[in-house]
């Protein structure tokens, strides 16, 4: 098809303009009628496919909600955590997502850039009192709330009881990282497993979480008093040295550099690791005989203490937020309130523990996940926070890359961490 005349070009341009305007009009129409299905309001919700509540658990919550609210229908989508942030961002201009699951590290960015709604005024006063501190501040930025927490979350210390007992040790020996390494050495020497420790240190957010937990145990913080990344000194360096030494000594699985939490979970499930840090939901999975060889052999503790006696877990809580472009804010809030409330949360503590203080003393609830509830009070007592800054992603990207450079031996540790700090400052 060739265009020979100027007229032809002008015609195409005119038609294209009409087509664009027309299609914009059409899409506006289809949006405002809110979807069919007998006058039901349809909400699009984005969740993640790993850690925390399982897809099954969330689907059960949705079913319960829809049964109680027959005029609302929830369309749930699930993506990997690694894709969650980018999907929320790219969907934001179209306003297609009413409800999004956000990580504790994103409120600053999403609030500043107008991606999720401020819901401060919708918070009942009682929540500040009834919710655990570790959960309550999850979606907070500059004194405002940008979502509702879906449970406090941190990485717990998982251990293979059978291996620990085989070398004559007990859970009490695992109270400190020094103790853990001593037992790990015995397990390695006894030939029970080649690499006793497994970490999720792939160049993703997971590596910042594992590093953060070690950083905290050395008494460190991610940022200095001015809020700038300061991992190139003191505890920041010691934590990397410590991690690298465990790899060099053959105590940590060198594959950790390509592992995410799911790989760590599988390694543990295959009985190929004695110790690992992982989120709450891993425990339940390790008890599933279909995918685990270590059913009934796994113990769970708060993260071990460092040399200074500190043991903060990384704050890994997440929250449900309302997309700025949502046309159904009231219904979205109704859903969020429903699934973050004690009614639904108390049913599924194996995914995430409940937000609500009262749940932790109710035997009917704690008996659903006794190991988690036993470790939780101490694990959640102190948490280490990742920087709450608008450009967190850029800082985290720099830190992830340089952590890997240091741990793989591609760069000297000090040089790598200096580079991370410099790159984060340059953004």
């Amino acid at each position: 098809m060739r265009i020979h005349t100027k007229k032809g070009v002008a015609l195409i341009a005119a038609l294209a303009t009409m087509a664009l305007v027309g299609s914009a009009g059409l899409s506006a129409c289809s949006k405002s009628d809110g979807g069919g299905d007998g006058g039901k309001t349809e909400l699009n919700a984005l969740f993640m496919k790993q850690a925390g509540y399982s897809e099954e658990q969330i689907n059960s919550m949705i079913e319960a909600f829809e049964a109680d609210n027959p005029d609302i229908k929830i369309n749930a989508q699930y993506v990997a955590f690694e894709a969650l942030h980018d999907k929320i961002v790219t969907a934001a201009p179209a306003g297609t997502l009413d409800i999004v699951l956000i990580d504790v590290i994103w409120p600053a960015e999403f609030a500043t850039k107008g991606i999720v709604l401020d819901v401060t005024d919708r918070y009942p006063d009682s929540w500040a009192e009834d919710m655990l501190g570790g959960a309550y501040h999850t979606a907070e930025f500059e004194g405002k709330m940008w979502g509702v927490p879906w449970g406090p979350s941190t990485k717990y210390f998982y251990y293979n009881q059978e291996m620990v007992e085989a070398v004559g040790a007990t859970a009490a020996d695992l109270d400190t990282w020094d103790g853990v390494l001593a037992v790990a050495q015995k397990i390695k020497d006894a030939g029970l497993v080649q690499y006793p420790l497994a970490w999720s240190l792939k160049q993703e957010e997971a590596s910042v979480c594992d590093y953060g937990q070690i950083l905290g145990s050395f008494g460190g913080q991610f940022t200095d008093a001015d809020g700038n990344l300061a991992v190139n000194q003191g505890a920041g360096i010691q934590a990397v040295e410590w991690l690298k030494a465990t790899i060099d000594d053959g105590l940590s699985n060198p594959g950790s550099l390509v592992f995410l939490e799911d790989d760590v979970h599988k390694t543990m499930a295959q009985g190929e690791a004695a110790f690992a840090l992982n989120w709450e939901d891993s425990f339940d999975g390790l008890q599933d005989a279909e995918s685990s060889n270590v059913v009934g052999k796994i113990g769970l503790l708060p993260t071990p203490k460092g040399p200074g006696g500190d043991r903060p877990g990384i704050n890994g809580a997440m929250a449900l937020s309302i997309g700025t472009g949502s046309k159904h804010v009231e219904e979205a809030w109704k859903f969020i309130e429903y699934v973050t409330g004690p009614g639904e949360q108390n049913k599924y503590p194996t995914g995430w523990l409940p937000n609500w203080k009262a749940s932790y003393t109710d035997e009917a609830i704690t008996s659903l996940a006794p190991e988690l509830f036993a470790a939780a009070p101490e694990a959640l007592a102190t948490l280490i926070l990742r920087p709450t800054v608008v450009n967190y992603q850029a800082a985290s990207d720099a830190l992830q890359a340089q952590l890997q450079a240091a741990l793989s031996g591609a760069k000297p540790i000090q040089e790598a961490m200096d580079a991370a700090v410099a790159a984060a400052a340059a953004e």
Partner: protein
Amino acid sequence: MLLPAAIVVFGVIVYPIVRTGVTSVENVTSVMEPNAEFVGLSNYAKVGKNPAFWSSMNRTLYFTVVSTAIELVLGLALAGLLNARIRGRWLLRTIVVIPWAVPTVVSGALWKGIFNPQFGSLNAILTQLGLISEDKIWLGSPLLAMNMVIVADVWKTVPVVAFMLLAGLTSIPQETYEAARIDGAGAIRTLRSITLPLLVPSISIVMIYRIIEAFKVFDVIYIMTGGGPADGTKTIALYTYYTAIRDQRYGVGSALAYMIVTAIAILSALYLRALRRSEMSLL
């Protein structure tokens, strides 16, 4: 009849190109605020001054040169094999095309599984053959990971290279070979003096096509390594994605995109020229 074509051309091609161009001279740091302050060419300057940009360019260059070279050599060998007059040639040709038919996302996940240090089949095979004594972390150090990604790319792409070269091979008249045989030329001499010279147009087309594709590589790396370890596989396309989408620096990201487009436009011009000179020309 023109309407669908016009919608496609303007809505899907022209508008995004213009829009990205506009964004590249603005300071856009949020997906929700497209109308931002005009900053001239400072985004381009920022890109040029950032060492991370240059190291990702170097990695892209490495990936492009190494993968294209290997694919050409293997592709040529495979094309010769597919051109041989053997029984069941149709079956061979069908099987060979399979890797190319697999979506890159799937083949990326497949290779990621093969290279998994704990459960991957590569370590299992090498251990059983006694070639390695402990598991190798194939995607665990920067250069090794890049080479492994190249392996995955080569596996997937050799078939298409082979088929493009096969088209060139089949167009070489049999009489030429017969004449060479009568003159007493051996296999190597025939390859050097007949096959390769007559294949030059096909080879140059395939080469430029592959360079363009390799330069844009994204999906296989995103799936296998996400740009890690230690940024070792972060090519220019991934670098642009992380800058624009993950860090929400759309101005700088758009400037990056324009720089990639410029480079690809130059390569494409070369490609079209090569096409026009050859008998495969459609223009």
